[in-house]
């Protein structure tokens, strides 16, 4: 039977997405494309990020308390939250503490049922965020109260709980599928509490959802949500123009001007939760010398890079975290572009005639850097003026990352997109001492006073106090100059004028529960 829905009628929103989800399970995967298709429309977390911001709001938990020692988080669960249903499953009870324990233990406990269901499947994000070292156990106090006991005080924990991997599954559904002898089905046909229910997926073509009438925040305004998977950005733009879709992901920067001029289209933009930077390998000469690192900070003309590479769609970075994050230290004075000062510092460091160096540049476009090669050429020219001759080098993208983790680089271009709205998520994975071992800290800079501050901040429950610690940490980073922070890029979504109520998210997800089509 074919179900015909009105093409672009009031009730249906078509979103031209950039790729296929890896699967329909919120815990297994770690790409934004999968989150957009799974955890965003169909699931909820105990707490969530306020749409468009990085502060945390109640979701499946209506309130929470944190013990004074920062090691116990008690969540009071919301009453009357319904799960979706499908042809094989009708829920008989509302969401409760058992679902929270099931969802968590499945990832955390190797002996839990459903920990190993699909061969080769891992709980990627849970592992990457180091959850095993943070959470000791989860306890059910009663049907509507759960307690997470941590191994150490960890203030970013609440933000972690708002991340996609912490989505809540239905225990009843998994049990039912196990009973039927099809345990895998529960990970293929998703059942969540989110604003949209799963209808069907045609591989690499379309994902269909319908509004969930009983969603605890109220039914979405549209009836049907369809993801039309369109990998090519030019084809997405063409589909937006012809009305085959109403919202498109990731417009090409080169198309933005034409889109702005099109009376049928609207562009939304949002400061990115990201940073693009140049990292000096402080384990290698000459960058073991702070003066050299500072000198090249003075020698780099960031304004020119912003204009030429980001075409104005970004802001100059002076700190490792972007200004939309709390804890941003606006008092830090950026190194001005000053080649004379740079030369002076180089001479002081014993390099009056400069030196030769290999500068690694990004081989691909990343959200935080639209054109690594162009950026490298500009930097090469800037540095040449102070006698530093940079040879531009790059590798295939996976190879590039692999080599960077071994510390082979002398100075390299890199960047980061934040996972959650916590400053810890920038400082620790990018500049922490542990991350030197893991390879994420590509400047291999491990500074005791900095480390003490960020570790202390992670153990401090009060956000204002944490912010102060991070502000101090930024002063150290600025002075020590393991990086040249270059830019925080701006993200864009393009939509048709008839779409109302759509709002961009700070963590780069695409939410459609507030959107509606107004003709």
């Amino acid at each position, binding site marked *: 039977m074919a179900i015909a829905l009105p093409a672009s009628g009031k009730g249906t929103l078509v979103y031209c997405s950039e790729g296929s989800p890896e699967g329909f399970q919120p815990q297994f995967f770690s790409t934004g494309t999968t989150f957009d298709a799974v955890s965003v429309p169909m699931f909820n977390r105990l707490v969530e990020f306020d749409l468009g911001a990085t502060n945390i709001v109640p979701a499946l938990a209506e309130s929470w308390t944190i013990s004074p020692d920062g090691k116990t988080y008690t969540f009071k669960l919301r009453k009357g939250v319904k799960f979706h249903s499908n042809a094989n499953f009708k829920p008989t009870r509302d969401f409760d503490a058992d679902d929270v324990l099931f969802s968590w233990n499945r990832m955390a406990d190797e002996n839990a049922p459903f920990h190993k269901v699909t*061969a*080769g499947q891992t709980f990627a994000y849970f592992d990457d965020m180091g959850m095993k070292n943070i959470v000791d156990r989860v306890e059910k106090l009663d049907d509507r109260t759960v307690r997470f006991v941590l191994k150490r005080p960890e203030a970013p924990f609440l933000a972690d709980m708002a991340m996609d991997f912490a989505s809540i599954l239905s225990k009843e559904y998994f049990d039912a599928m196990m009973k039927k002898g099809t345990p895998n089905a529960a990970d293929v046909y998703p059942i969540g509490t989110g604003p949209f229910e799963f209808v069907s997926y045609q591989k690499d073509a379309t994902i*269909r959802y319908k509004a969930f009438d009983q969603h605890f925040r109220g039914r979405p305004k549209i009836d049907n949500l369809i993801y039309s998977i369109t990998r090519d950005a030019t*084809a997405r733009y063409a589909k937006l123009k012809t009305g*085959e879709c109403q919202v498109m992901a990731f417009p090409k920067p080169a198309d933005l001007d034409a889109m702005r001029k099109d009376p049928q289209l609207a562009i939304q933009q949002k400061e990115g939760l990201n940073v693009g930077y140049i990292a000096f390998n402080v384990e290698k000469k000459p960058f073991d010398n702070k003066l050299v690192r500072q000198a090249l900070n003075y020698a780099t003309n960031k304004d020119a890079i912003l204009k030429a590479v980001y075409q104005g769609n970004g802001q100059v970075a002076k700190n490792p975290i972007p200004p939309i994050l709390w804890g941003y230290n606006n008092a830090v004075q950026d190194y001005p572009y000053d080649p004379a000062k740079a030369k002076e510092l180089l001479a002081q460091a014993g390099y009056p005639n400069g030196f030769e160096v290999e500068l690694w540049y990004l081989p691909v476009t990343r959200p935080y850097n639209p054109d690594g090669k162009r950026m490298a050429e500009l930097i090469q020219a800037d540095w040449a003026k102070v006698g530093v001759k940079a040879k531009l080098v790059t590798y295939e*993208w996976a*190879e590039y990352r692999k080599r960077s983790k071994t510390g082979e680089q002398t100075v390299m271009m890199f960047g980061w997109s934040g996972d959650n709205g916590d400053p810890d998520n920038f400082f620790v994975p990018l500049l922490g001492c542990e991350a030197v071992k893991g390879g994420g800290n590509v400047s291999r800079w491990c500074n005791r006073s900095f480390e003490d501050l960020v570790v202390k901040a992670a153990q401090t429950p009060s956000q204002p106090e944490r912010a102060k610690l991070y502000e101090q940490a930024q002063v150290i980073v600025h002075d020590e100059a393991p990086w040249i922070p270059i830019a925080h890029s701006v993200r864009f979504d393009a939509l048709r004028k008839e779409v109302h109520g759509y709002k961009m998210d700070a963590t780069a997800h695409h939410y459609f529960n507030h959107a509606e089509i107004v003709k």
Partner: protein
Amino acid sequence: MWRFVLRRAALVVPTFIGVTLLAFALIHLIPGDPVENISGERGMEPARRTRLLHEFGLDRPLPVQYGSYVAHVLRGDLGHSLTTHVGVAQEFGTLFPATVELAFFAMLFALVVGVPAGVIAAVRRNTAADYAVMGVSLAGYSMPIFWWALLLILFFSVQLGWTPVSGRIAVEYDVPAVTGFMLIDTLMAGDLAAFRSALSHLILPTIALGTIPLAVIARMTRSAMLEVLREDYVRAARAKGLSRMRVIVVHALRNALIPVVTVVGLQVGLLLSGAILTETIFSWPGVGNWLIHGVQARDYPVVQGGILLIAGIVIAVNLIVDVLYGVINPRIRHG
């Protein structure tokens, strides 16, 4: 006859080894690995990296990996995608009909337009019509598919609004995949509007993919026709007083088509490679699109399995064609 069939079938074995080895070697030659691909900017704990490499079987020496791969293939197990964790054969089976549908129409388009164009060019040799056909087909042959496809979209879909931009069917039709062939599925569902939508979605990808084979077929038909038209039996047919049309179509074209058919057979392999580009631009959910993504994600089982299955199909088609030739023409059988 049977000896001939067996001899041809025996050639499949070295071809199989060659294809598996080539696919295996090529994907491993690309820098990076699937685990690296997952880890992104973050970096990965060395312990977890080691565990994943082990789970994917990538911590063993390459010859061992190859041996184990071939052993699995011989048991009919192509492995699971490292990205979706779904069986490779199952994913291929879901997507392959879309590619077949597209390739079939592209070939049909190439034949229906290419053969008459070649005939006209041959019959009206050295006239404006001949130059036009040859000029256009040379242009068609040289056209990068990627660029040509975008041009078609921008002109016919965006400017004129005649055809949809991409996809296999308009999103409002949710037709259950029974055969996987959209035209058949829509008919089985009894939904004529959906059928029309599916047909309209086929037009641009068909043209984009069919252009190169069309050019080859037109040029091949022309040169084959020119040769045949010089033959004595054509002169004899004319001398008998048969109509010009009858001479050209029945006597000349029929014989000229023999080399054309060979070319068509060879184009099948090219069509599948062209489908990779066409499917990417038109968001066509076929195996080409899937393979490209597999390469990007370093999804070894998908790339190896996909290439193997496609090669297997091409080999099978060629085997059948060879045998049929033998059946039709005894000279090949005993040659």
